[in-house]
């Protein structure tokens, strides 16, 4: 009888352990499906591809303002400047185009990617600065206008192309993906907010006068002209600002955690169209 009880207890432990182990396993495909289902169920009236328009997909009044703004887009100057910068040769005669596939045109949707050689996530911003450094040029600030202009132009050449982020079958790539998810869902700052607190749990809600954008497709419009900033902002600038807003000391732009969370969010946006550069309140 005792043996039977012991076997039953052991079986119960095993049965209990299995779902927990399964829940802990990294499964980007399952995450992708759950993520998409969450937002499409929460916002059944928003067409899937419209999520890339952030707050404008959830607020009719804001959308009207945005449509008016798009008649004379405030990011146009950045696109023009970025185009000039992109075409201007470095001192050694090479150009940005020499550093990228397809000469850098229409490739935004493939970033970030996991580099199997270096074992790290490469964002478009990082790739641009590495291109500069390789060609003997000083790197640009990740949060200022030069980087925003270059990425604005590159995003513009990719408009409408669907995100195509890959996670290679490599434990380092999966670890980077999981670290990105961890960063996204971890609470930080004195206000004890995670990225998800605003962009998952509270997506579509107002925070003061702003409508919180859904996390689904949130990077598709980057870089953005923000009225609040009175200028253009890169993905790096957005992450730094988010951290500050919850009273957390921001990480260095292009810190591994920021690159990994960009990787995670971009993977979640796979199939959604690039809409950048964008304009936000």
């Amino acid at each position: 009888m005792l043996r039977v009880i012991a076997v039953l207890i052991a079986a119960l432990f095993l049965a209990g352990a299995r779902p927990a182990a399964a829940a802990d396993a990294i499964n980007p495909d399952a995450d992708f499906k759950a993520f998409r289902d969450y937002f499409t169920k929460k916002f059944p009236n928003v067409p899937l591809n419209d999520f890339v328009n952030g707050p404008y997909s959830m607020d009719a009044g804001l959308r009207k303002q945005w449509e008016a703004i798009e008649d004379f887009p405030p990011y146009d100057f950045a696109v023009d400047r970025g185009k000039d910068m992109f075409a201007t040769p470095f001192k050694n005669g090479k150009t940005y185009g020499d550093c990228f596939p397809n000469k850098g045109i229409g490739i935004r949707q493939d970033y970030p990617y996991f580099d199997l050689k270096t074992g790290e996530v490469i964002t478009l911003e990082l790739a641009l600065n590495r291109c500069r450094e390789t060609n003997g040029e000083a790197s640009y600030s990740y949060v200022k206008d030069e980087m925003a202009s270059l990425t604005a132009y590159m995003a513009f050449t990719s408009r409408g192309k669907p995100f195509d982020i890959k996670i290679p079958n490599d434990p380092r790539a999966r670890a980077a993906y999981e670290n990105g998810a961890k960063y996204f869902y971890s609470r930080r700052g004195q206000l004890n907010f995670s990225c998800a607190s605003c962009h998952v749990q509270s997506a579509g809600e107002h925070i003061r006068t702003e409508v919180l954008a859904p996390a689904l497709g949130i990077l598709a419009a980057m870089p953005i002209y923000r009225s609040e900033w009175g200028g253009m902002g890169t993905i790096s600038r957005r992450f730094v600002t988010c951290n500050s807003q919850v009273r957390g000391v921001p990480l260095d732009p292009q810190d591994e955690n920021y690159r990994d969370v960009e990787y995670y969010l971009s993977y979640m946006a796979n199939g959604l169209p690039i809409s950048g550069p964008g304009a936000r309140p």
Partner: protein
Amino acid sequence: MMVGTRDMRLFAAVIGFVCFATATVTQAASTQSDFDAALAGALAAEKDAGALKNQWTTTEQTLAAAKKAAAAGDFDAAVKQAKLAEALAKASIAQAKEQDTAWKAGVIH
């Protein structure tokens, strides 16, 4: 209601006792070395929070306020701010350690 003489005496006695007790327990003014010790504790905790990449802006602001008060010679305020900064830094460390596993509870499944 009229207040009687006996009540007045009792009230005066209580006030007197409170004044005496307050004077007795009033601490000596903080010194530079008190501040140095408090600042060292705060900086050590903030360094640990930095290693976890989880510092708070409020900790940094409180540290700056502590240093400013010390520079002005107000060591009571400086020690108070430094101790507050240490408490904030320790809270950010606790947050990082808790979130190391707690983040999974928020994942969309």
